[in-house]
């Protein structure tokens, strides 16, 4: 019974997504929309499949750039988050700075990176990094700052050092917050990479889309969008799975059902 309910749930969500695309396809056919304005899903997917050999290096470029930027962003984000979460002084100093920095549209930052490092992969990595840091810092800091004071007292009375408190309580309890932020951060990193690629690069999906729209190859531009969305979903799923493995304790309902 339980399984069938789960399967039914999955079927209904797949049907919903499929019907969304079917409606798009139908609307384009009925209203005779030109593919230069809005291509049909079938055209986009055909283009994506046919052009895949040509697109593949660009997809790879974007993926690698994103992952490098995201990786660096993750390390910096965790370090900043731990600092901000552990020390009151760091919290007071860093928070306004972080909020201010995250409010800057990253489009405005790309030209500066290009100025410093020239066009290409480096500014894309940096843009990806700066785009994805903020949610990681905020979540890690929140996780640490919400440690129960009683638990801290228990450990301090035992004679635990700050480091032992952090290692045994602070960091583990921050894990669910951290992974929740990673799922968001990885998609944000994509946005950053593509943004930078559309402005100043000669490889990557962003570049492909710029060139495609310049030559009115709208299906190709949309194929680029689809590729991006698929990569985004893929990475989201990967991090969701890792999260489930590491922080299963935070979703006690699932665990209960399995036990």
């Amino acid at each position, binding site marked *: 019974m339980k399984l069938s309910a789960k399967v039914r749930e999955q079927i209904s969500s797949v049907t919903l997504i499929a019907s969304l695309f079917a409606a798009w396809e139908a609307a384009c056919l009925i209203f005779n929309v030109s593919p230069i304005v809005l291509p049909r899903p079938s055209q986009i997917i055909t283009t994506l499949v046919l052009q895949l050999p040509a697109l593949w290096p660009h997809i790879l470029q974007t993926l690698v750039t994103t992952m490098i930027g995201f990786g660096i962003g993750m390390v910096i984000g965790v370090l900043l988050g731990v600092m901000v979460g552990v020390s009151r002084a760091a919290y007071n100093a860093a928070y306004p700075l972080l909020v201010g920095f995250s409010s800057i549209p990253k489009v405005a930052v790309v030209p500066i990176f290009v100025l410093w490092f020239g066009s290409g992969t480096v500014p894309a990595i940096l843009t990806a990094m700066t785009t994805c840091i903020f949610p990681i810092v905020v979540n890690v800091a929140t996780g640490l700052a919400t440690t*129960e004071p*009683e*638990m801290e*007292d*228990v*450990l*301090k*009375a*035992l*004679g*635990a050092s700050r480091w*032992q408190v952090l290692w*045994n*309580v602070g960091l*583990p*309890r921050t*894990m669910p917050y951290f992974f929740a932020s990673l799922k968001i951060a990885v998609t944000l990193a994509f946005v950053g990479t593509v943004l930078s690629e559309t402005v100043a690069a000669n490889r990557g999906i962003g570049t492909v889309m710029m060139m495609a729209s310049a030559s009115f190859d709208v299906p190709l531009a949309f194929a680029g969008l689809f590729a991006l969305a698929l990569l985004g979903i893929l990475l989201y799923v990967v991090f969701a799975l890792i999260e489930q493995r590491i*922080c299963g*304790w*935070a979703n*006690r309902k699932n*665990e209960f059902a399995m036990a």
Partner: protein
Amino acid sequence: MNQQGAVAPSSSRNRIVQLEDVRVRFGADTDAFLALDRTSLTVEAGDFVAMVGPSGCGKSTILKLVAGLLRPSEGVVFVAGREIGAERIGIGMAFQNPTMLPWLSIRQNVMLPLKIVEPYSSTYRAHKNTLFRDRVEALLEKVGLGGFGDHRPWQLSGGMLQRANLCRALIHEPKLLMLDEPFGALDQFTREELWSILQDLWIDQRPTVFLVTHDLREAAFLANRILVMSSRPGRVTEDRKVDFARPRTIDTTYEKEFTDLTHGLRSLIVAAKQKEKVKS
């Protein structure tokens, strides 16, 4: 202020806890208030002390002073003959909130102090699956949690979590045990059951216990000595010896001497509260 690591007068070595003219002030200059006023107190090793009094009278403040979580604004706190904070002595502590870590099993939760306190921590890796595991299992058995070591905290009821909490506070056989309203959130039957369990554990290990509670029956049942405290600024106004024979049973609590004691304590606290009302 006082020199770090000062040593208490040698005549008082068997006194495990000693507060001398301690004052605790919270807050900055203008809106500062006195949480604890000129308190002096000595506690013999192995004693069981309960602190009762109106809310906000500084009971928990004394607990935190002794546990080294708080520094006195004036005066000195000696624990085991040394000024508190001079060396780590691994004090066991339990609050009303059991704060079991949800990512660990009950066994791992109870084992946590062994990971931190010497002499256990240096051999923790070697013993965690053998010696320490048996030790935890034996203690869990004593409090009625035998076989629950592998359970996760959320699978246990409030009373069971509180049992595990006691185990975590006692697993390293601390010299000092600090209990801050540990049974406050439990129903009466569970509470009375845990009183007996705590009494047995105390008789076994003989740690020096400080218990903060609102429940006068709890204080009278468990303690050898009850300190009644006045409203803010808190100070000890009454120091009662409780010498009912051990082990005490729940029946003890229905004897006349027992009810006289709790009744007397009650009127003292009511009086303290009234004084506060007059003041404000």
